[in-house]
């Protein structure tokens, strides 16, 4: 069974708050010193899901697509090291400043360029902007059925059975192929690459594709094609006041806490 996974490289979510800075004028996140960008954790789980589908089906390929600057190559290499077969890097200055729509458009063209696989997998959302829309837009553009926010994926013959995470429990769904899936963190940890695979991945060629390779005009992608306009980017400040509730016994402290919460109109 052939699978394509779309992955995004993002600033490390483990970056300490103190090291996270934005340029409010340029409305951009500044890279933190000494902290490398990483593959979005949900996307690494998506790669894991794809590899398990490939293992379960016994044949097929897992290919990786990423749209992003030069460094996005590392996210592709990481996926290759985990065991994916080929990588495609959508790299073009024309893609700069895009939004979820332009990204999905470019990805869908790339998927058609490579060949629509049996299963298309995304992370439930990129862990930087957390919009969670690209996977669904690609499904629309390619006119494929989709299931989002999945905690489990299982092959059953030619169809796929998945378990969605919903507000009050889980929802089990069966999809025909081809289809689009987005993977949630409940899916479980992605594998840690073996050193030999890291070395092989380092030697592997990644195919680079530009907007024109995909038959896209520069006006359709990047800032020019974006449908979302950013108006401001800033770090909110939050002041925390701490009040220690005094009391000789736990009961007194509890009573004091209740009073304080009432005063604050929380109770």
């Amino acid at each position, binding site marked *: 069974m052939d699978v394509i996974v779309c992955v995004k490289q993002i600033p*490390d979510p*483990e*970056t*300490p*708050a*103190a*090291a996270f800075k934005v340029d409010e004028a340029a409305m951009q996140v500044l890279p933190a*010193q*000494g*902290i*490398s960008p*990483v593959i979005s954790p949900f996307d690494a789980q998506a790669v894991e899901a794809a590899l398990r589908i490939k293992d379960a089906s016994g044949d097929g390929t897992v290919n990786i697509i990423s749209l992003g600057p030069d460094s996005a190559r590392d996210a592709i290499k990481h996926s290759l090291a985990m065991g994916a077969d080929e990588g495609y890097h959508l790299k073009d200055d024309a893609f700069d400043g895009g939004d979820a729509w332009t990204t999905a458009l470019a990805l869908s063209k790339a998927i058609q360029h490579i060949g629509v696989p049996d299963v298309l997998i995304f992370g439930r959302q990129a862990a930087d902007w957390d919009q969670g829309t690209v996977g669904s837009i690609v499904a629309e553009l390619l006119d494929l059925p989709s299931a989002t926010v999945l905690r489990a994926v299982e092959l059953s013959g030619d169809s796929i059975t998945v378990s969605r995470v919903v507000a009050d429990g889980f929802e089990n769904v069966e999809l025909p192929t081809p289809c689009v899936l987005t993977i949630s963190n409940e899916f479980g*940890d992605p*594998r*840690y*690459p*073996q*050193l*030999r695979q*890291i*070395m092989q991945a380092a030697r592997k060629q990644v195919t680079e594709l530009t907007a024109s390779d995909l038959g896209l005009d520069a006006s359709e992608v990047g800032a020019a094609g974006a449908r979302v306009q950013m108006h401001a980017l800033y770090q909110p400040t939050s002041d925390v006041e701490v009040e220690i509730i005094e009391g000789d016994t736990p009961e007194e402290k509890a009573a004091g806490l209740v009073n304080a919460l009432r005063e604050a109109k929380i109770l």
Partner: protein
Amino acid sequence: MTRLAESRRRSGATSTGKRVSALAIPAWLPLGGILLVSGAETVRVTGAHRELFFNIDHFWVLYMLLPFVIGIVVYGLVRRSRVWRLGKPIVSGQITRESLRSAFDDLPLRLGRLIKGGGGTERVLRDPYSGVMHLCIMSSMIVLFLVTALLAIDDYIPVDILVGPRYLGYSLVADIFGLVGIIGVGMAIAHRWVRPRTAWLPTWEDWLILGGLGALLITGFLVEGLRIHTSEIDVNPEWSYWSPVGYVVALMFSGVRVSAALDIHQVFWWIHMVGALSWITLLGYSKLNHLILAPANAFLKRTSAPGKLDMIPNIEEQEHFGVSQLEHFSMKQLFELDVCVRCGRCTDNCPADIAGQPLSPMHIIQDLKSYATAVGERKVANLVQGNDLNFGLDDEAPMVGSVVRDESLWACRTCGACVEACPVFIEHVPTIVDMRRSLVMEEARMPDTVQGTLETLERQGHPWRGTPYTRDSWMEGIEDRVPEWTGEQDYLYFVGCTGAFVDRAQEITRSVVSLLREADVSFGVIKGMESCNGDPARRLGHEYLYQILAEGLIELFNETGVNDEQKTVITHCPHCFNTFLNEYPDMGAKFQVIHHTQLLEQLVNQGRLVPSSEVPEQTITYHDSCYLGRHNDIFEAPRRILEQVPNVTLIEMPRNREQGLCCGAGGGNMWMEEQGKSRVNEVRVEEAVATGAEAACTACPFCIQMFDSGIGTVQLDVEDDDKLKVLDVAELLQAAAVSESD
């Protein structure tokens, strides 16, 4: 009496055998005294001697057997050496000049170990009971061997040495050491039977070796006693007093008719002799081989610092990473497996085992030894038959994961307590880390927390996943008092990841800076640009990541002028210290390295820091960090600082210095969940609390954290003010030597 008459008369000696009757070259000192005493009796004892092969016909059979015995022993060892030779030569894939050089570097040190540690059994003697036991057996065997050899020499040379008083002294020494041997064997049996240690698994080997030796000693005395009874006690009773044990035995036989006694003598003589020769063959087939292998291993032990892990050279070109098969070990590592005598000292000293966690270094070595016997021999057979090395071995349980379980490998703190305790100089830690390397790099199979730590190291250049701090958080508010490294200063203060990213350790970092400023030391800090030196990755088995991190840091040191023989790096953390000092030279480092406690001690001695302010009166116990103490021999510098702080009384925990117990964090366990009955840090905190000390001082940011968290559970019900305080030596010194808060 015919037989008697027929038997050859010779000058000296004993009935051979084992025996006990003879004097020994190694026992010259006691012998000197004996000769003096016996000299006084010269008049009466002139002519005293014993007849060689008294009452024995066909003694030549023995001489026929001897080459066989030697051949059997040599065959056993040579055969076993084929398994050792499955391993890799020490440095690279082939025996090269380099690999030979590394096996024989620093000859004086190696010979010293051979003599003191091998011959002198230095480490065996540390345990009083076992030490005495072993000394008894060993001295008895050496003396009795020499006694026998002397007898043979005396037999072959034309001059008679063993006559008169010399013979009597000889006989006395032999009797004494025979008795000493019996005492030793008794102690050894009692050790196994009466009070076995938990780690002990006496097996057929133990009983065969000990039982055999005991039987030899006893039959030796029986033979002697019967000889005295039949030929000496009536004729020259004053000679017999010089064979006191044989004399007592002779008295026991006094009611037995001489002709019967002579028959019994012959029976026991042959049992004794054939038994002795059979017992000697155990040298080639049982742990008795430690007589030969242990001194050899003392010689072969690495001469580098014990905390050093060896580099995998040209790692990108390796066919495998770490050790997952016997043949991935070095010859030395395979050899070591056979040196182990299952004494259990390693396990008794292992922090994981002490805390009831799933690691026993002895069992790792023993299980690998059994595996080397079962599977190694088959691999050798495959080689001999020209098959693929692993032909027919596909169904064998994997060595790493089954023979040695993953959780045992992860429970290792790399603290080196096992290596320090091993009386036969086995190095368990490199063997354990080699298998970890395979788990991490070859199989990518590791606890989640280890994976998270390695990922954080890869991405953020430090192991502290989820820290809210940056590299420079610790200097917030004191930026202007932290000099930036310019390349001009004498010392670079390498803060390290823990000193920067962990709040409790940040306090220590600030103390060190404050002290360096107080003493006017020319130092600087590389702000914002430091990265991990790779120690956690290396200890966790990710050699490749270690090399990448180390290359990156060395490049930074090159660019900033740190990597210079004239520059010294002060480390805050003993783990950084060990890696810089012992492992970075392999990566091209030239700079000097000093731990903050060493430098602070110098500054106090030079009067540049004066611990004059009175800190509150307190009793302090010092906890040795493994990587400062056992691995790098820095035991006294921190203690001498503490001793010079007024009002401080220093007391020791029972396990201290070389025998110090790990805090539990070493070997990457700082970032792992502990499995087992209890936690190592709680065991150690209990030991510190038991001293009655008000505070525990240490010099390692990991130890501090482990103590803090251990106190949380061990002293859960203790009022905060009464809880054990935990301080870095630098913090205490700052309180005493820096007048104002800097």
